[in-house]
């Protein structure tokens, strides 16, 4: 048994060394996206400019540029052009769009498709929820834009605590373990490219936390109205247009609240990566086209 355990330990050690070399040599792991407190909110570090990588062979590869406001965008949101239609899109990682080049974000595609007659600002951040959306709307968006689109899914609606707005406590402190994490490319590769941490959290949530099981169970009307965060929704107003996919948003939401709506129809097959409609260029084009059609049909 001793020999066998020794064999396993040596094999694992050797594997780690080779994996570290392979990951470094082929640049398969991205640096951690640095975060920073901007205007009291936990956002990305302004002016960060790097490549975001995910997948075993880094199949997902996106260039990101963080603007002065802490969002992934080529635009500085403090400058709003006078002669263009101003559009804001609020949402989570879907809108943040780290999975494709920032030059091909939803906003840039809309601008390109509408021949630069519009200016689009994307307020997207992963882990955002309805509380963040309400706070973003009040703090950054209200009264400044001609059109405001909000990407919503069922799981966003049930949250009671913001994911990043006002969350100074969530800033990652640099300690010894963090430094090792930053230095060891293979650890970052396993965690970020393969999502090990989130998979483990998923398992724990699914198996051992009964509350998280019920969180998404809002298919019936009674549950739905009980579970969703009405306070956060009330901080939005009727100028907000809800952007949704029918399989990800309970139809009761649209019938209960009087928001205008745009349903995203995925006309194109995923092009860049197969497993998720959102994490690819065609997914973005589908959203951009849905928004463009809405603006053309509802010109102010």
């Amino acid at each position, binding site marked *: *048994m001793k020999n066998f355990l020794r*064999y396993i330990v040596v*094999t694992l050690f050797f*594997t780690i060394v*080779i994996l570290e070399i392979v990951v470094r040599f082929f640049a398969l792991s991205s640096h951690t996206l640095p975060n920073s407190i901007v205007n009291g909110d936990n956002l990305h570090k302004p002016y960060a400019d790097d490549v975001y990588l995910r997948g*075993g*062979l880094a199949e*997902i590869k996106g260039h990101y540029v963080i603007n002065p406001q802490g969002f992934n965008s080529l635009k500085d949101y403090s400058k709003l052009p006078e002669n263009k239609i101003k559009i804001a899109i609020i949402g989570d990682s879907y809108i943040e769009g780290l999975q494709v080049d920032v030059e091909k974000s939803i906003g840039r595609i809309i601008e390109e498709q509408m021949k630069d007659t519009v200016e689009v600002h994307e307020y997207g951040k992963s882990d955002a929820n309805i509380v963040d959306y309400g706070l973003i709307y009040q703090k950054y968006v209200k009264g400044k834009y001609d059109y405001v689109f909000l990407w919503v899914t069922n799981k966003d609606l049930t949250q009671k605590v913001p994911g990043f707005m006002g969350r100074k406590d969530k800033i990652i402190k640099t300690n010894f373990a963090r430094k090792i994490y930053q230095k060891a490319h293979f650890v970052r590769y*396993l965690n970020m490219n393969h999502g090990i941490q989130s998979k483990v959290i998923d398992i724990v949530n699914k198996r051992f936390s009964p509350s998280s099981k019920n969180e998404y169970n809002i298919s019936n009307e009674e549950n739905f109205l009980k579970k969703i965060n009405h306070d956060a929704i009330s901080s939005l107003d009727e100028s907000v247009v809800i952007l949704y996919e029918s399989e990800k948003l309970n139809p009761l939401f649209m019938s209960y609240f009087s928001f205008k709506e745009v349903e995203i129809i995925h006309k194109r097959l995923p092009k860049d990566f197969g497993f998720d409609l959102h994490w690819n260029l065609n997914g973005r084009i589908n959203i951009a086209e849905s928004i463009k059609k809405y603006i053309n049909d509802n010109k102010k």
Partner: protein
Amino acid sequence: MLFNSIEFIFFLPLVYTLYWFVTNKNLKNQNLLIVIASYIFYGWWDWRFLSLIIFSTVSDYSVGYLLSKTDTKTKRKFLLWVSLLTNLGILGFFKYYNFFLDSLYELMPIFKTTLGFNTIEIILPVGISFYTFQTLSYTIDVYKQKMKPTKDFIAFAAFVSFFPQLVAGPIERASHLLPQILKKRTFNYEQSIQGVRLILWGLIKKIVIADSLALSVNEIFLNFSLYSPLVLIIGAVFFSFQIYCDFSGYSDIARGLSKLLGIELMVNFDFPYFSRSIGEFWRKWHISLSTWFRDYIYIPIGGSRDTTSKSIRNIFIIFLVSGFWHGANWTFIVWGGIHALLFIPSFITKTNRKHTDELPKTKYIVPSFRDFILILRTFLIVAVTWIFFRASSVEHAFDFIKHMIDWNLDMNFLVYNPYDNQPLFKEYIYLLGFIIIEYLIVSKVINLFSKNVRKGIIIDSFMIIIIILNSPVSSNLSFIYFQF
């Protein structure tokens, strides 16, 4: 729980530690651990279906026990029927109820009548066909007095639910697995090293080959009318390797895990795609199922001992039942029927036992030209029959084949994956590499179980890295054979 999941990465070391360091002094405790671990492993999908395994365990243990208490022929026969009806009744209800009802509905207009029943929504318990056949082998062997029934209920429960092979085989015989469970296991270094290597090789087959081919195969079979004949041929070939790597990968992992626990499972695949005839293919593909049908159906109904016409009937029965075992769909029955038609000519000409020698027959590593042609011919025939296996309906399969032979020289799709528009280089390289490695193993140039420690460490590390680099970000893909 899937072998290729995060859960299993935690589950296995925990079970292994408890198995060899905590319960190793007492066989009963070790077997009890196998039962508990197996129930957790199975219950991870849906704990409700554990009741079926427990029911099957209790009923077959009881039947075995009662068979040992009686010598009366009629009583013994009655007990056997109780076991058969219980096991096959559960299997029939969960797997075939809706199929029979749907088929009856389609027949009703012919008789100008209607049915008073409706189909119901039934969830098919994972691996039900596998463990049902495994427990049946116990009752039948005890009935035929080929083995003595066990009095150790825990050991019997461990035999029925043994987690490495519970949901997708190999379908073990009680006479092979049960004695190993009843005997104290001692740790064996070489067996454990072999186990690790088999697990890694199985994961490579599953994750690197089967899963990377799955994306293209799914798209090609779904939207076959959009693609050129060349793409459809690629689709059929890809599926042939997908199903082989998926299923034999599972069997390898199962055998490897068992070796880690000091238990040997039977070899389920013996490099079937290097077969030179259909007869040879069936001696090498899903061996545990083929031999199960041979021993418990084919031979009892007469096998090849009777007249030629009766033997042909028996062959048809065995292939059709084999097809039906895979699923409640006419596609599987047609698939079985086609294989029967392909096998019968060699049976009539008594050439079905040909090609029992090993490859390569030449003094070089490569096979002789004649063998190469025979291998290619057999593979292409098998690949075409897989279309029926993969298609959603018999019409779908025929339409697919019709498009496939509607030949034109549209070569554009050859280099692009029709699913994501990316060049197909990766899939081709992996597939080619895999075929070469498999062939080198068959021709004994490579020994997967090299005893050289340094070589072993390098091979295992290399395999782990290949698996990590090729694991998809998305949720784990299930094994195809779970549905059967």
